[in-house]
């Protein structure tokens, strides 16, 4: 068995990551423009300097252009993650007792950053979570875009306005994720650098879990 050495973030991952970053920027900025024309919450209007497109039609044009990038790139990412075993290797398994240990460590500022090739349980949960939210964003978006042609899809959400609300809440969850993600990347800048350069070389063979409870021998 050959142990091929790879970079932490292979080239396809880096291309898809930054493509997604640009597409997210377009989708969120233009989405806020569209939202402003019929707000869901009376107290929430997005200021003009945060929105993309001066007039409604420009916001719509950007949104329905960005959707192609985000959906095609997202599909490529999910296929790649499944086909190469990256999801299985990096995001699973998620263990309950490890989650508690990680939160405990994080609160005591004892989180280890020594091994960037391994995600802690909170990271695993957040990454799996944001991928699921991303998929739900696309599904709710399709239901809003084609409430008659995809009326079966709309029925999952109950009503047109419910689907809009779900789409909005998904966006909010993604914005929260991005805020945390960007803050942490800036706090530990070498993670940001490795998403550009590829980072350290890693052994892609599955690790033996060191956090496994160790049997004590008498």
């Amino acid at each position, binding site marked *: 068995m050959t142990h091929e050495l790879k970079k932490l973030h292979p080239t396809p991952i880096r291309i898809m990551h930054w493509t997604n970053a640009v597409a997210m*920027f377009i989708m969120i*900025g233009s989405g806020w423009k*569209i*939202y402003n*024309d*019929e707000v869901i919450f009376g107290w929430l209007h997005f200021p*003009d*300097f*945060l*929105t*993309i*497109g*001066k*007039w*409604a*039609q*420009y916001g*719509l*044009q*950007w949104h*329905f*252009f960005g959707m*192609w990038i985000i959906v095609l790139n997202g599909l490529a990412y999910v296929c790649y993650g499944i086909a190469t075993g990256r999801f299985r290797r990096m995001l699973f398994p998620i263990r309950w007792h490890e989650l508690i240990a990680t939160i405990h460590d994080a609160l*005591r*500022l*004892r989180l280890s*950053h020594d091994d960037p090739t391994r995600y802690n349980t909170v990271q695993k949960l957040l990454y799996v979570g944001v991928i699921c939210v991303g998929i739900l964003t696309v599904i709710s978006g399709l239901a809003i*875009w*084609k*409430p*008659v*042609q995809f*009326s079966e899809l709309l029925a999952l959400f109950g009503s*047109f*306005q419910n689907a*809009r609300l779900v789409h909005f809440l998904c966006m909010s969850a993604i914005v929260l994720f991005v805020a945390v993600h*960007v803050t942490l990347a*800036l*706090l*530990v*800048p*070498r993670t940001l650098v490795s998403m550009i350069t590829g980072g350290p070389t890693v052994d892609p063979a599955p690790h033996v879990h060191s956090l496994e409870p160790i049997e004590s021998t008498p």
Partner: protein
Amino acid sequence: MTIRTPSRSIFRPQHGISQEILRENKRLIERIDRRNVLRGALSLGALTLLTGCDVSENDQVQTFLRAVSTWNDKVQSLIFRPNHLAPTYSESQVVKPPRFNASYDPQDVKPVDGASWKLELSGRIENKKPWTIKDIYALPEQELIIRHICVEGWDYIGQWSGPNLRAFLERIGADLSAKYIAFRCADGYTESIDMPSALHPQTILATKYAKEPITDPFGFPLRLRTSTKLGFKNPKWLVSMEVTDVFPETYYSKQGFNWFSGI
């Protein structure tokens, strides 16, 4: 006069602060460079400010975005299911009066004089004789209780009735293999739809709302009402209808809104 001696805070540790955590995390703390964080945050902020000056209106950007929009028209016509019916609702859910949508306020609507009104026909139609209100009202009616969805994101349930558009097109001998139906309105508004949407079983020329003749703000005496298009694709105060193969730009498509705008 007594000088108060501040008492020792109960939150203050009794034996000094343990420096152990700091020592353990020295490497991490050294890495947190405040200047770097600030610089990063500022660049990110500057990037978002870029949207303040709108690049959308740039000619090349607009050409590109409109090309994508035209591509989206094609995708939507492929997605379109000619016999798939939109959900319908009960009379108790109907909103009265309907919600107004136009590029101007309802008080600026100029009422159409029903007595002199005519619907002119042109293009690939055999019998181009204009239609009066009486003629239209004499046709069999179809009732639709459907959801109106505006491009802005609001919606309401409305009850519309009038002759089925497909039946009307057949009656006047329109060429059903033509590509588009183009409408002109009394206020100068123009709108056009693709033939498959025109032939959809839930597309009508509406004369009534909630069983009463449509009132002035909502399109008296005749408007289009289809279950498969956004609100603005349902022109009011119709004065002419043309069956054509030449793509008819519309009031909103000229401004950059998506032409097909199916739902």
